[in-house]
Each structure stands twice: as structure tokens, then as C-alpha cells.
């Protein structure tokens, strides 16, 4: 069966909430019923087939021919795969419980926010608050893996609770702010104030940052056995981190944020 494919009929003028279009919610529905799904578009609701031409049969594999105005792609889905050809909007994979979302282009803010499990692969860049909690909430992403082949914006991993965010490009300011636990790894450069108000968790940096906040204390250099174990755990995923288990072992460890609980760590490869 070919993937169920949603192709935009025209350029979107308003943002569209595509959260009703997930493998869970479309399972067993005929094409006509899928076309009749009501989608929030701006301040009104429209039928899915007003916005998209819909082809294919397999509701376990969805393809969006994307736009930066498609929000909530794969919200709360628990199985199957969604592929976005092009860009996606905000809140991609919010509350994701399982399955896989692949975006060929860029995504906007709050991707993977409060995600619980599963995998998100973003081949372009991610906006701010990747893997974070919604504003006012205190529990961000709590499981799964997010891979960003490009750069991530500011406040990545805000309130991160569990799971891993792997950024192969650069990360913005306030990386891992208010983290409760979990792991964020970055191959490129990071912005200012990394680990701001971090309680627990790990920031693993392949490059030395311009500065480490003064509220993180140097714990010296170490060869940590868990790093190869962690990186080996990403084998089978499309990430360069999985190939680094033989090389990335020795790190300088900074503990902090000492203005908070102080049990988080920044590990910088040496």
C-alpha cells in the first residue's frame, strides 16, 4: 500500500492545525472520511480535502508535502510514521508517544515539546524550545530521541525530563535551561547561558563552548564509561553520534547549575 499523501492545493494563508491527521486517528477510515476531517485553519474550520489533495491508502505511513504553516504534525501519535517533505510549522510531534516523524526541511518552535517516546528526525533546522515544555508547564520532553541534522534555536531542552536530543549543527542560547534530567548532545557551537538553572541531566558537547557559565564548577577530566554505551544506543538511527562511540570518551566535566540543585553536568569532549 502506498503512503497516504497530503499535498497542499494552494499556498496557505493561515496556519493549519493538522493534529487530526495521524496514523492513530486515521486508521480504518476510508479516503472520503479522511477528506472530511475538520482542520482548524486560522479562526475557522475547514475540511482536509479543501486544503490537501489526498492520495494513497496506508494510514500507518503519512506524507505531508509541507509548509511552515502546518502546525501540530503528529501530535500525540503512538505508532506509524509521518514524513514531511519540505518544512513543518510549530509543535511538531507534541506529546508524541511512539512511532517516527521525519522532516526533510526545517521546523518551527516547540518541536517535540512534551514528547513522551518515539523518534523525530529533522534533516534541516529546528526552532526555539525544541523538546521543551509548553509555557507554564514544568515537564518537557520525557522520552524518545530527537535528531536535528542542522541547527537548533534557543532554549532547546527547556525543562527536559528524559530522553535524548542530538543536534549535529549548532545550538542557540540557554541550551538545556531548567533541565530535570535527560541528555542533549551537540556537535557544533552552543550559545550563551548553557545549562541555565539546570537541575540534573547531561549536556554533551563535542566542541569547547566560548564560555562555561560561572555557576558550573570544573570537576576535571575523565574517561566515562557511560558515554560509549550512550552513543552505541543510537546505533540504527540516522545520526553521526552513533559513530562516535570509539572516539568520544574523554571529557571535561562541569557540575551545575550551582544556583539550583547543582546535579546537572556539562561534558566537553577533549
Amino acid at each position, binding site marked *: 500500500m502506498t503512503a497516504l499523501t497530503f499535498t497542499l492545493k494552494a499556498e496557505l494563508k493561515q496556519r493549519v492545525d493538522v493534529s487530526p491527521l495521524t496514523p492513530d486517528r486515521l486508521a480504518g477510515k476510508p479516503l472520503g472520511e479522511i477528506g472530511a476531517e475538520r482542520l482548524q485553519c486560522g479562526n475557522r474550520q475547514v475540511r482536509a480535502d479543501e486544503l490537501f489533495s489526498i492520495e494513497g491508502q496506508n494510514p500507518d505511513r503519512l506524507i505531508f508535502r509541507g509548509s511552515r504553516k502546518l502546525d501540530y504534525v503528529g501530535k500525540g501519535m503512538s505508532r506509524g510514521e509521518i514524513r514531511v517533505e519540505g518544512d513543518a510549522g510549530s509543535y511538531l510531534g507534541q506529546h508524541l508517544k511512539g512511532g517516527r516523524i521525519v522532516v526533510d526541511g526545517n521546523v518551527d518552535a516547540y518541536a517535540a515539546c512534551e514528547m513522551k517516546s518515539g523518534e523525530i528526525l529533522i534533516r534541516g533546522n529546528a526552532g526555539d524550545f525544541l523538546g521543551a515544555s509548553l509555557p507554564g508547564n514544568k515537564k518537557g520532553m520525557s*522520552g524518545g530521541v530527537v535528531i536535528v541534522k542542522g541547527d537548533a534555536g534557543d532554549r532547546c531542552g527547556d525543562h527536559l525530563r*528524559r*530522553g535524548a536530543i542530538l543536534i549535529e549543527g549548532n545550538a542557540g542560547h540557554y541550551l538545556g535551561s531548567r533541565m530535570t*534530567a535527560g*541528555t542533549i548532545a551537540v556537535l557544533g557551537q552552543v550559545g550563551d547561558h548553557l545549562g541555565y538553572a539546570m537541575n*540534573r541531566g*547531561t549536556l554533551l558537547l563535542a566542541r569547547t563552548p566560548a564560555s562555561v557559565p560561572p555557576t558550573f564548577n570544573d570537576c576535571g577530566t*575523565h*574517561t*566515562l*564509561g*557511560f558515554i*560509549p*554505551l*550512550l552513543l*552505541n*544506543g543510537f546505533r540504527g538511527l540516522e545520526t553521526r553520534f552513533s559513530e562516535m*562511540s*570509539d572516539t568520544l570518551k574523554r571529557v571535561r566535566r562541569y557540575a551545575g547549575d550551582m544556583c539550583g540543585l547543582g*546535579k546537572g*553536568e556539562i561534558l566537553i569532549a577533549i
Partner: protein
Amino acid sequence: MNINGVQIDATFAEAFPMRATRVIITAQNLKWAYHAAQAMTGFATSVIACGCEAGIERELDPSETPDGRPGISALIFAMGGKGLAKQVETRAGQCVLTSPTSALFAGIGEGEKIPLGKNLRFFGDGFQISKRINGKRYWRVPVMDGEFLCEDTTAMVKAVGGGNFLILAESQPQALAACEAAIEAMRKIPNVIMPFPGGVVRSGSKVGSKYKALSASTNDAFCPTLKGQTRTDLSPEIESVMEIVIDGLTDEDIKKAMRVGIEAACSLGTENGIRRIGAGNYGGKLGPFLFHLQEIMA
């Protein structure tokens, strides 16, 4: 039945159900993995007084271990789940946590979970760090040489303990040589351990004793010095008997180990003083697993 001139008795070994787990111990090098593994599986020859039966299963190549370092896999057996959990935790805490550069992982994934690092983590006094990797939880416990990395739990499975066979020889050195040959062959079989020193036990026991306080005592029917003093099971030319006890994850594993062990012992033949292969049983009353020697060697 006769193999290379060695008589295979028409008898059976009697085994009983146990609970078991496998752990993987890694270290900076094999030498230190062995130190930790030998300590963890030490004083674990018999459940009668040790609380568990444990032994080293085999060496592991770095490519086979979770953290890519040289390692050892060890099997630990006990009569029940609670006892096993207690023994695993105590031994992990005193023998592996303490051993330089060591890390400890579960060697069995499926089954009822028992704690491995789950409680040992408290040694970290609040500085311990949890990491969940591929659905498994690990603990990083800060210790004086760096970090002790330990998986949260290991899995417990149903297993079989007490498989055995006896080697009856014309002299003590010949009995021991046959046992050594058998153990060397049996160590290549996965999923089994031979828990006694060097894999061999010279003090096989019978149930009961003339002393009320003792539940087991020397197996006088197989003691060569008592041939004229008790109802003996030994012919005049037998001067020494040694036993190999096998614990395995399944009865099939035990059968395989018994087969290769008996083959290796018999390969020495009568010219090396090996006369008979027997087995220890309790009349079929103790355990549900009966390993008939002649069936295994058929």
C-alpha cells in the same frame, strides 16, 4: 554401556528447579574483570551453605559487552527468587562495586526483574546519576576511581541445578586428570556453570546423617577408604571418585554439558585408570529432572 572401555552406569543424575540470572562484568582489561567476577562468584559452591551457586560462564570479547570493554559473563543460581535477588545484590555491592574499573550489566533481558544497581545506587549518596539508554536504566555511581556504571536490574529465569556425574578411577591423580579434561570441554558449553572449586567436587553427599543436626553427610557408598566398612558401591580396583556438578539455564544445556564432559573423561580410557561413570541421585525423590547417563550418551 561402554565408551572406550569405561563403563557408563545405568543410573541417572537427579536435578531440581532453581532460579538463575546472568551478569556481565566488564573492566579496563580482562585481568580486572576476572578479579571482580571471581570475587562475585566466590564462596558459591552449593546452596546448602553459600546461599547460591555461581560461576564464570565465559570470557567476553569487547564487541560482545555493552560498554565495549573486555568482560566476563557469570551465572548465579539460587533455590528461589528472593534468595537470588539478595545474593546478587550483596555480591554485586561487595565484589563488583568495589573492584577497580568495573562495570556491571544484566546478561539476561527477558524475565522477572531483580535489582542489580537499583539499590546500590544509594552508595552514591545523592550524587548518583540515572541514564536511560534504549529502554534500559543505568546508574552512574561516583566512586574513588571514577564512576561505577551499573544496570538497574537484571532478569531472573527458571533454571535447573544439580546435574552431575561421577568419575570413578583407579587412582586419585587419574580421577582428577579425567575431571580436568571434562571441565575443559564443558566450559565451552554456554548457559552452564560447574560451581565447585575448579568445577570438581570430591565430597559428594548423601541425604541424612547419623547426627540429627546434619541433613547431609559423606556419600559413604562412594568413599574408597570405606570399601570394607560400609555397603559400598565401588569395586576393588576403584581408589578415587570425583563428581562434577552442573547448573544450567535449561535441562537441555545440562545434557549437552554432561555429554561433552563424559566424552572427554572417557577419552582417557581404561589405560589411564578411568573405569566407570556414575551419577548422584536420591532415588528420584528430590527433583523432577532426571538425567539418565546412558540416554545422554546414546
